[in-house]
């Protein structure tokens, strides 16, 4: 379910991401001023959320690719899910330090 929600959220976010980058088409300064706008704490929090969703979606996807293509025992799958959750938390923590 988390995989599905993160996918939907990313799909909704992406067009805005592309539009923001497209600002550089007008003038580089447009992108620069946009990036200054994103220095606000609220935006930073949203960015952390996005990276978290990104990581979660990637790890959920890897879990599916593994289940569907490699022969895993049932206990190993639980371990993999746990490892993926742990990695997502670590990634998030690291990102929080960055910001």
């Amino acid at each position: 379910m988390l995989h599905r929600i993160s996918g939907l959220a990313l799909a909704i976010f992406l067009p805005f991401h592309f539009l923001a980058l497209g600002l550089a088409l007008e003038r580089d300064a447009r992108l620069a001023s946009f990036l200054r706008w994103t220095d606000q704490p609220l935006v930073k929090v949203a960015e952390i959320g996005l990276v978290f969703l990104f990581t979660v979606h990637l790890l959920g996807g890897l879990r599916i690719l593994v289940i569907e293509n490699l022969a895993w025992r049932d206990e190993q799958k639980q371990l993999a899910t746990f490892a993926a959750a742990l990695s997502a938390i670590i990634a998030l923590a690291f990102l929080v330090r960055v910001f």
Partner: protein
Amino acid sequence: MNVRLYIWQRATAAIMAPLVLVHIAIIFYAARGGLSATDILARTRGSIAWAAFYGLFVLAVSIHASIGVRNVLSEWSPLSERRTDACAVFIGIVLAGLGLRAVAAVVVP
């Protein structure tokens, strides 16, 4: 979902897995280094490598996301199969269009 869409979905996912890791690394690097727009654009302008990398990423995600959203629509919304197909095509075109435009924005000198 059928076998054709499944293959496209899983294949673009597999292609994107390494691309996503590189992209996350780039985000961390740019954020830690406090790179400004000028810095970033200085590195991407005129670069065939960045054009290829992000061009591939955009095309893959356009296919992957449109199939994914189509599946969610077919399971959670009352739309017919034809309508969900149409939504998928629309989303794919929007993402590919905006995405390639964004790649051009940062790569074309």
